[in-house]
């Protein structure tokens, strides 16, 4: 398969299919995700959006019985067919989940975990990385005097920001966010949304969200998934004001889903 990839594309999907044993979860997915943009993935429950985001760092392959065909081009490599170095891929493509899931360790060790397993041992170097990552997620001022405290002492919003700091400490190029604010209150949600908007300067961000207004607020592009297919990929402005497909209009206006 020859993929025609735009220069600005971080990921290019071409006829990507995924089966959970006999269940066809992703059907002929073909679109591109641009670098330094926030791409929101929306769609009703069970439409394949979380499955899709898990294909971008090949986490989907951890599920028994999964089979993938087609292409996901990332850094000149087809993740589906080529032999992919998973450690390298997941260093480059960080993932943040629905609920902050810090390791049962100190705040410091959570952020230093990734760089350590990638071979950085020097304390002063790790200190620098930890400080930079925590500053990037606007958590440094709040935690700098208690870096040795357990990460579970932090609030929900702080834990989620810590997880983003942990993800960016390995210097990825992409961040995958799977409903990152669904377990957070509106104030923490706002801080995560602001952070995502700032981070897109340096990272490509793909975010699954059930919150339509959140997708409208912070994403540049939005992809609407339905029954494992991509119905529409468009600029967020267009998709939420005047979508091209009737199914998209019906979904975003709450007529189904």
């Amino acid at each position: 398969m020859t993929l025609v990839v735009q220069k600005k594309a971080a990921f290019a999907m071409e006829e990507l299919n995924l089966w959970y044993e006999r269940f066809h979860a992703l059907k002929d997915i073909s679109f591109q995700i641009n670098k330094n943009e926030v791409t929101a993935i929306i769609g009703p429950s069970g439409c394949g959006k979380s499955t899709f985001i898990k294909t971008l760092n090949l986490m989907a392959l951890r599920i028994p019985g999964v089979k993938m065909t087609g292409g996901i081009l990332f850094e000149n490599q087809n993740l589906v067919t080529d032999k992919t170095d998973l450690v390298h891929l997941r260093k480059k493509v960080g993932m943040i989940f629905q609920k902050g899931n810090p390791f049962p360790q100190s705040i410091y060790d959570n952020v230093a975990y990734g760089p350590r397993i990638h071979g950085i041992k020097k304390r002063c170097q790790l200190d620098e990385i930890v400080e930079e990552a925590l500053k990037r997620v606007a958590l440094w001022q709040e935690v700098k005097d208690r870096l040795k405290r357990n990460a579970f002492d932090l609030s929900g919003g702080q834990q989620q920001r810590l997880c983003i700091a942990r993800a960016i400490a390995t210097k990825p190029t992409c961040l995958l966010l799977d409903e990152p604010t669904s377990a957070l209150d509106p104030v923490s949600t706002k801080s995560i949304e602001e952070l995502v908007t700032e981070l897109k300067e340096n990272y490509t961000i793909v975010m699954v969200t059930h919150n339509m207004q959140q997708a409208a607020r912070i994403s540049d592009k939005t992809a609407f998934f339905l029954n494992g297919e991509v119905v529409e990929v468009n600029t967020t402005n267009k998709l939420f004001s005047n979508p091209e497909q009737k199914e998209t209009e019906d979904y975003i206006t709450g007529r189904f889903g």
Partner: protein
Amino acid sequence: MAVREQFHNDLQRIKQAIIKLASATEEALCMSVDALFNQDVILANRIISQDKDIDKQEFSINDRVILLIAKQQPVAEDLRRLIIALRITNDLERMGDNAKNIAKAAIHLGEDHRLTIHEKIKNMRDIALEMLHTAMNAFEFEDISIAGKLSEMDDKMDETYEQVIKEMLEETTTNPEKTQYIMQMAFSARYMERFADHITNIGESILFLVKGESYKLN
């Protein structure tokens, strides 16, 4: 009642309120032209006082639309439907003001001006009424082919307005002592022309609703 169903019922009620407001402006226009032709100052004063009711209806519709936007956070066509409700209501309120201004002109002319009111002002009223009916029909059925007809009708209104103004100017040269009265008639013609312009705005709002893009009709 399901939330979605409630939202649609609310939208429907706003639509009916707008149609009711359009009827009020229609009535105001008809009465103001009657007041002008019949030198009826009492009727003219009633129109001025009834305009407050039109203003109240506008505020009420605006409040309901804003509440619905805040509570339902609509997008796409639903959002456009509420945005045009605000725009159309504003146009209808301004049309009410134009009718009120014609009534004020009738008061300025008084009961004893001994002037023949230009017959073509009645033609202008008829064009305006036909345009209003067309616009409301297009609004009710969200039909852009009906809305598109407003452009041609507005051209007819503009043409008639130009003729009326031209003839009135000629009259000022033959009857210079009546200039202040003729001016009031010319103002009335101008208000009627503005009334029609607001109706074409309504047509444009309907095109925006259906097509999702802005169009100009006049």
